[in-house]
């Protein structure tokens, strides 16, 4: 707890145990440092936004927690016995892969079935229920390549739902989805939070962070702040001002808008996201 601004990321019950502890973690890509000496503690049951400008290492931190990237120094402790689910950025998923929606969702049972185990009738039933929960009932037999961007992201959420994990890692789940889908996905995240699951979510949208995420970690290569979201805003580590030069250059903000990260301004282009 030595070099970071702000306090520990606190969970719903403030005295609860840590679900994930990131201790002094650095990750290198080749010779480039993606994140440097990051500390963060995610309490069980906490709902945390990971924020910061493009290239600040948000996805890298999430991938390290997920076990995909190995830290070059430091260590990450995951409370033993807790299952973890990871939802990558949808741009990292092959959208035209020739399988059906139901098959894609059933991949979430991998931890149970392994390579050879059968997908039982009960599992298929649960997968259908999860699809209904995200608003995709009736699309089970569709090929995933025929889904819109918003529907695709909902399908990935359905897969995360059936993983039934205590720790859930989400990488920019609201990128390239419309307002209606965002609202539905937020509701699912709130349900997870209410069920006491630990949720760590990378996102850009400050409105959403401000409104829904009690805790925040702010990255810019290093961890520059972590704690209660309202403290992050008070300390101007997160801010709605465009001239917040130290963190968000105007170019970053423009990039984020161009990529449709801000759900309140992307009604163009994704209006086909109805069922």
């Amino acid at each position, binding site marked *: 707890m030595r070099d970071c601004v702000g306090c520990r990321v606190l969970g719903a019950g403030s005295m609860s145990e840590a679900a994930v502890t990131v201790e002094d973690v650095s990750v290198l890509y080749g010779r480039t440092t993606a994140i440097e000496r990051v500390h963060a503690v995610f309490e069980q049951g906490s709902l945390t936004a990971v924020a910061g400008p493009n290239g600040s290492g948000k996805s890298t931190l999430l991938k390290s927690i997920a076990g995909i990237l190995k830290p070059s120094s430091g260590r990450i402790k995951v409370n033993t016995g807790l299952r973890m689910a*990871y939802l990558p950025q949808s741009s990292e998923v092959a959208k035209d892969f020739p399988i059906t929606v139901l098959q894609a969702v059933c991949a979430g049972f991998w931890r149970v079935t392994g390579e050879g185990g059968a997908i039982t009738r009960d599992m298929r039933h649960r997968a259908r229920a999860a699809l209904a929960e995200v608003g995709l009932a009736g699309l089970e037999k569709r090929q995933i390549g025929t889904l819109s961007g918003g529907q695709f992201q909902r399908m990935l959420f359905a897969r995360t739902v059936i993983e039934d994990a205590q720790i859930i890692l989400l990488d920019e789940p609201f990128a390239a989805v419309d307002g209606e889908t965002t609202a539905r996905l937020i509701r699912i995240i709130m349900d997870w939070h209410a069920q006491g699951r630990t949720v760590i979510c990378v996102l850009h949208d400050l409105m959403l962070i401000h409104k829904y995420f009690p805790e925040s970690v702010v990255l810019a290569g290093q961890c520059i702040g972590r704690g209660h979201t309202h403290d992050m805003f008070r300390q101007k580590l997160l801010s709605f001002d465009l001239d917040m030069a130290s963190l968000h250059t105007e170019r970053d903000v423009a990039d984020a808008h161009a990529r449709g990260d801000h759900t309140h301004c992307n009604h163009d282009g994704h209006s086909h996201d109805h069922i």
Partner: protein
Amino acid sequence: MTIYELLAAPFVDYSFMRRALAACIILAISGAPLGVFLNLRRMALLGDAMSHAILPGVALAFTIWGLAVWPMTLAALAMGIAVACVAVVLTRVTQLREDGSFTLIYLLCLATGMIMISRAGSGVDVLHILFGNILGIDNAALYLAAIVASVTVVALSQIYRALVIECMDPGFLHATLRGRSFVGQAFFVLVVANLVASFQALGTLMALGLILLPAIATPFWTRSLDKAIALGIGIAALGAYAGLLVSYHASLPAGPAVVMVTGGLCVFSVLAGRYRSVRSHLAQ
């Protein structure tokens, strides 16, 4: 000419035609499914580079033991794995990207291999190694293909689900297995083994013909992975059968004829297929 003479007689009358057909169908059964995954992983050109890169291994075995199946096969397998390791290391530590490092290595390997073979053998040997010798397939080569195909089918069934998830969403698989996934490596070894088995029939320049061409054709007809795999095997087998017939009746070299007919089926799919073909584009 009767239909029997046109379609069946060459295989009934000549054992070398039967062997060639058997070898091609065996290669189709194991190679076409691998090709479907290679194509989905956008590794088609990497596979092609790989088929040339194994040449120095083949050439070394040829220099020592002559045109013997097993030494050439094992040397090619070792060479393929070595080349992949070198390419991966080059990509990680230098600024070379994957395609660049594979291109560098395969051109270098092709040139080195050709020099080694032309010093040790005759012009006919060079032709066999470049274009294969499908009509001269002996028992050893046929057994090799059968063993490779059997191992491939069993192994593929064991890693199938992981392979599907890895192709679609590698981050998800690696997170679920906490980074301990060897499915990519296992798949790669299977591809190299099939290349090597195919090498005897179609040579280093066309070894991927029956593996990749059917895979490129299938998305034009089906959007289901299972059907794509079955269809890929069918297209490869049909291409081999028709290609051998064409080569017999028109006195053309057999290996290129097989690849040409399979490629023709592929072109037909691009032109007239159900999904996103030239025909469906014009119909819009």
